[in-house]
């Protein structure tokens, strides 16, 4: 679809389009800033309608974020999980080989992260100013931040566009802290913050 979405922005926001037309709109949005703005405004209009209706409290608290990692039935096998830890230790990565037992325990606790690092081509970049690394997908779709010698939780930050966004907190287990972002987008820089100070900085290449 090459033509602008025009009135279909309103129809899309109202849920009126059939699946084919909706896909056409979504395809066009990928390459048209003007239509993204048009749709964003139409969605704001629909949201204003929704917000103008009586607001109700949900009956129960919502569950936590679902895992973004694809389900892997085979990973439930305990034997394979241990095998994976061994495999990590044998990976030809100098960084991984230097990690201590606590590192392995932390990675075992986060089997999705370990699976990702094992099974997906990735890059590893060290943080300047901290004993920390980030392993990330070559397309920027996932990140594992590992910090050694951490004695307190560290915030992982994403500096971008003149501002800084908090991504999450790496909490120490033993002397290793980790944060896994299983499904993200390309981020050129990451930073570590502790006690209100930036203590590490990584420049990522793609």
């Amino acid at each position, binding site marked *: 679809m090459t033509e602008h979405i025009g009135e279909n922005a309103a129809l899309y926001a109202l849920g009126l389009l059939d699946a084919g037309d909706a896909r056409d709109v979504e395809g066009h949005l990928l390459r048209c800033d003007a239509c993204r703005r048009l749709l964003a405004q139409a969605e704001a*209009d629909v949201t204003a309608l929704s917000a103008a209706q009586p607001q109700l409290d949900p009956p129960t608290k919502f569950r936590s974020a679902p895992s973004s990692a694809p389900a892997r039935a085979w990973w439930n096998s305990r034997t394979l999980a241990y095998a994976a830890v061994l495999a990590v230790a044998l990976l030809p990565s100098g960084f991984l080989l230097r990690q201590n037992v606590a590192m392995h325990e932390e990675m075992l606790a986060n089997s999705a992260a370990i699976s990702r690092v094992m099974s997906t081509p990735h890059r590893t970049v060290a943080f300047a100013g901290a004993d920390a690394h980030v392993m990330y997908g070559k397309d920027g779709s996932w990140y594992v931040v590992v910090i050694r010698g951490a004695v307190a939780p560290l915030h992982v930050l994403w500096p971008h566009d003149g501002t800084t*966004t908090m991504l999450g907190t790496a909490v120490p287990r033993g002397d290793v802290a980790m*944060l896994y972002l299983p*499904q993200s987008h390309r981020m050129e820089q990451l930073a570590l913050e502790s006690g209100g100070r930036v203590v590490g900085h990584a420049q990522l290449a793609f």
Partner: protein
Amino acid sequence: MSASAVELFPTMRSISDDGALADAFAAKAPWAFDEAYARFGRLLYSTAYHVLENQEDAQDCVQDALARVWRLPDSYTRARGALRSFLTVCVRNEAITRIRSRIRRHRMEERIAAEPQTPGELGAVDVIERDKLQAALRALPEEQRKPLELAYFHYKTHVEIAEELHEPLGTIKSRIALGLRKLGTALGSRA
């Protein structure tokens, strides 16, 4: 840490800032999912409830819609606009898909039902009689209000609306788009 590196991080926004939440949600930062629900959950649940009119269905609908958004790569980027609006429309569209499925199941009973209701007699509109939405709807010309009500409160497609109102499809699309724009202005979503 070198001074130059420190200078790379000029502004750490509060996580209470909607823009910070939207950035974090786009990056799929773990905290952003729960925070988005904490901040917008009431609106999202209410949106689903007003379509489905059932607590359990509404909650399932919100959970499924949010889970889908969270799992799909690049489902939300900042270029798509405000996170609040994006999520609201996602939830509402999920609710509409469900209610249309329900309607299809009961199509026969609906056909047997009495004469078609007019938009002013709809149950959903009764619910909002006292609020500003009612006033904003009434301020619209009837030719825009009718198709918009059929779309918003009856979840009819623009094709169905064109058939019901005996108007060309293009005319109905234009009237819905114009009506929505006016309603947005009246409700404060446009500057």
